[in-house]
């Protein structure tokens, strides 16, 4: 009708065109930049988070496993998956024999898997049998971990880890012998003599440390 006579919307088209051209000119570089920065940042952040979760879950699992040993939870060794849902960790307790005092020795393996992240922790623990019944002494000898998704049950790997720990055990024997063989005076002189070569923040309280060390020295 009458509206037919209204003339076509030329400026409107012009405005739209200027806007489109401008938007393209502004938006394109921004999108490009964002996708580059944002993309890699997000990826890193996600990867980091997954890794963190896997590691944390494995660590908590290891803690839980050790506390389980301390709680004298024996006789039922295939431990449950501790979390609900598909992302979970599994515990595996492997007895490796009996110790000198008849204590049971274990490898506690904890594996956490979050998407592509695998985290395995292994702890070596000795559980002293309750004598007569309840008190259970558990000594965790060490724990170490790996992010490699390899088969932890491979004995070769376990042995190499053990060998490494063996060195530490030898060193323990050495330090204990030294403490036992030294008199309190000798031990005090030896330890106090190190003060001068200590870094400054440690020197201030060193004498008090030596006193504490001497008082707790092993003796024969």
């Amino acid at each position: 009708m009458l509206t037919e006579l209204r003339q076509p919307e030329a400026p409107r088209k012009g405005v739209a065109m200027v806007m489109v051209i401008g938007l393209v000119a502004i938006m394109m570089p921004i999108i490009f930049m964002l996708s580059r920065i944002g993309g890699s940042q997000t990826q890193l952040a996600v990867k980091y988070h997954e890794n963190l979760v896997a590691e944390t879950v494995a660590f908590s699992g290891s803690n839980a496993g050790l506390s389980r040993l301390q709680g004298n939870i024996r006789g039922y060794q295939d431990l449950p998956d501790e979390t609900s849902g598909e992302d979970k960790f599994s515990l595996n307790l492997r007895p490796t024999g009996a110790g000198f005092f008849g204590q049971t020795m274990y490898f506690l393996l904890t594996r956490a898997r979050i998407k592509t992240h695998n985290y395995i922790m292994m702890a070596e623990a000795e559980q002293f049998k309750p004598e007569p019944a309840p008190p259970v002494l558990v000594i965790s000898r060490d724990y170490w971990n790996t992010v490699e998704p390899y088969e932890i049950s491979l004995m070769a790997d376990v042995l190499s880890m053990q060998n490494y720990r063996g060195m530490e055990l030898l060193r323990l024997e050495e330090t204990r012998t030294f403490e036992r063989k030294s008199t309190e005076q000798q031990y005090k002189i030896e330890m106090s003599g190190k003060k001068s070569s200590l870094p400054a923040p440690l020197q201030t309280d060193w004498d008090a440390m030596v006193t504490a060390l001497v008082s707790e020295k092993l003796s024969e």
Partner: protein
Amino acid sequence: MIRRGLSLTEIIIALAIAVMVMVPVTSMFSTSGQQVQKSRNFSFAAGLARRISQHLMAMPFENIVEVPLPGLALHDSPDDVFFNPIVNFSASQSGVKKITASDMPALHDFLVQNDFKYALSVSNVSFGAGDEIKSISILITWKEAGRNMIYRTHVYVSSV
């Protein structure tokens, strides 16, 4: 017929589509930001749970009791064995610091913002003759982008 260019409607529709595509891309910034905050919260929660689990091992067995949900806040709370007091650089009781706005502002703010709380779910079984075990679920809860988050870990403590 006279050939027309793009109509305003067409351009607007095209822009709308462009916006739809752009939004996820442009928001990647905040996604990585959210992810970092998520990691920080998770890391902190796991640390809290570990802290509690370690304290449980040093605590007298009978002192391990249920802390029901919604749990206890770490900040501005009465003394407990896990978090308060938290540090003391002096040689006596008078110098203890708690998680309050005046003593530990950074930590206090962070805890208030994210509403971190802890709860303990204790399953206690006595087998007689002093053979008693507690299975403790440590529950850390916090708020993150409007969601109630929970981190759980479990420890066993025997009456040694």
